[in-house]
């Protein structure tokens, strides 16, 4: 390595190190706060005076009002269901727009694209009263329906991916007498692992981070809250002093599975994001 290269290399590593520290400080701060013994959102010292594991323990023992385990199960249930439904619906729609040609295709694609632009929470009162009229208010099923109901709008990444699968594969299968139904399940889907994973991750994560729809649908029913809404309640004005450190602990617990998921499925994520773009 030449001298100049060495200098550049050291410089770049230093910059990266500084940047990654900047990126990790909030994460570190979160973990630190989750072990802090003093209550409250603010302390007069940066470093906690004492550490404790109680914030974590409290989440699982003091469940009378803030039932974290229950919220976690609710969220997991909703996330798994809506992940499955959303993935299937999205792939179906993407496949239709990518492979099948019919009269209203272009119009439908544009309408779907446009509908996705409407601020989602504008429709929440309407959705709440609709759910209520069919007896689904304050149920997890309503949440699943809300999260997967818009699946038809997020087709374009998956469609971009399907567009890159050579159509000759379809044609060969059609010559063998396969119907479109068979082609979808037997040819397209097995070739689309990255995009299936990508769609599934996104659908899986949505229920963990949304707090708006949950508060509209669940209202005062604490037991049916999901983690995000629950955590949000922990830090509202009346509770923040008492529960801030527990909130941090809960956030750490929620983040761990997502970190693992991301690290494990990183490559699918990248190929998903670039699928629609990579062919220009």
């Amino acid at each position, binding site marked *: 390595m030449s001298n100049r290269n060495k200098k550049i290399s050291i410089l770049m590593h230093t910059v990266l190190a500084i940047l990654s520290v900047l990126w990790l400080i909030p994460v570190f701060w979160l973990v630190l706060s989750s072990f802090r013994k003093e209550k409250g959102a603010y302390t007069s010292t940066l470093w906690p005076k004492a550490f404790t594991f109680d914030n974590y323990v409290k989440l699982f023992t003091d469940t009378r009002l803030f039932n974290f385990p229950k919220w976690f199960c609710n969220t997991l249930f909703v996330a798994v269901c809506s992940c499955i439904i959303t993935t299937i619906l999205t792939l179906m729609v993407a496949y*239709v727009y990518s492979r099948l040609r019919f009269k209203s295709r272009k119009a439908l694609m544009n309408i779907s694209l446009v509908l996705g632009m409407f601020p989602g929470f504008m429709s929440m009162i309407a959705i709440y009263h609709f759910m209520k009229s069919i007896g689904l208010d304050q149920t997890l099923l309503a949440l699943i329906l809300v999260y997967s109901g818009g699946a*038809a709008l997020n087709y374009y990444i998956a469609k971009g991916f399907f567009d890159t699968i050579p159509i000759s594969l379809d044609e060969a299968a059609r010559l063998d007498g396969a119907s479109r139904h068979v082609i979808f399940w037997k040819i397209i889907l097995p070739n689309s692992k990255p995009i299936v994973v990508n769609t599934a991750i996104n659908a899986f994560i949505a229920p963990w981070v949304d707090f708006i729809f949950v508060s509209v649908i669940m209202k005062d029913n604490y037991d049916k809250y999901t983690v995000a809404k629950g955590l949000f309640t922990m830090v509202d004005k009346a509770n923040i002093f008492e529960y801030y450190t527990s909130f941090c602990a809960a956030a750490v617990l929620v983040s761990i599975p997502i970190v693992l998921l991301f690290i494990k499925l990183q490559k699918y994520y990248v190929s998903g994001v670039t699928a629609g*773009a990579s062919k220009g």
Partner: protein
Amino acid sequence: MIFLTFIYIIVEALLATFFFKFGFKYLSHFHTLGENAQGKQWNEALQIYERTTGDNSMLILLFSVFAIAACILFIWILVLLIRNIKQILKLEKEGKHIPTFKEILLELLDSKFHITLLAAPMTTLVLFTVLPIVFMILIAFTNFDANHQPPGELFTWTGLTNVIDIFLGNSTKTHTFFGILGWTFVWAILATFTNYIFGMLLAMMINHKLVKCKKLWRTLFMISVAIPQFVSLLLISRALEPAGAINLALMKIGLINAPLPFLTNPTLARVCVVVINMWIGIPYTMMTFTGVLLNIPEDLYESAQIDGATAFQRFTNITLPYMIFVTAPATITTFVTNINNFNVIYLLTGGGPFGLDYYQAGKTDLLVTWLYKLTVDKHDYALASTIGIFIFMIASTLSIAVYNRTGSVKKEDMFQ
């Protein structure tokens, strides 16, 4: 096909039942949105003012929308039914084979497969997105606000009053609207391009041939993505407060004497949201660009090498144009998403610092957060809907125009 006719008829009957048993009583009030508010009557025995049930304008409007949708569906199926019967008659006249129900089902799995696949997604789409949106759009033409709340008060049609109020009135609302609109665009541009440029630089740095442990660096940056946004943003927002950790740290080091008003000074608050947004967004753009960089065809570089191009020339002539070209559609999508970027603004500053010259809004408010506050805190639904329609128009025009012009749509058959 005969069996299909039966199915159509049953569906028609169900729709008609729904309409007359449920929808009609709402639809009949649709033109006024209700005449009688909840009333009261003195009950001597119980010693209370008993309430009599009145009309609820909101439910009338909502279920009228559903009833109208049912009517449209009814007519549509009626058309299908008539067409179906005509075809049966025609086929019979010509003495041709009338397809059996089984054959129709098989067709749905093959030549009409799109109907099968789209049926479920479109149904949920109509129920959970389209009809609620129609409802919200209609609200923009009423006076549904904090002073007209059911069950005590009715609201009614007011035509274009809200639109005129916002766009043409010389009021605080107009001033607020255009002020926020301007900032929304500034924000969307800044947020998109800071992330774009710095994400690209970061990706290139990590992918540079002199950098070791590429995967480790990427993972380090991705860890922050895993914390739910509302948690990290809340944490950062608390840290930026006058008594928060960042001010505390800066004062400990001795850089400043008094806390900096990160979120109370309008300019500083705007800088803060853009910077924090970089913290949120750059890991994502970094990952995207990593994917793109790895996909640049090697032969492009090889030919450049032969021509004797310098590293800088290789970058400006090959890498940069390629990346810009490839990521153009994604960038446009990001831009539109940023116009509606609710989380970062709402959780970080709540739109604040509030401005005295603004109507219920702050200096970092985007149209979408203003709208949220108007709905949830102020119950000013009519005004919020009007703004909502406007956002919707900007965003959809932009995305349709751009999306249909990008290469990936024009050349969607390229690889097929």
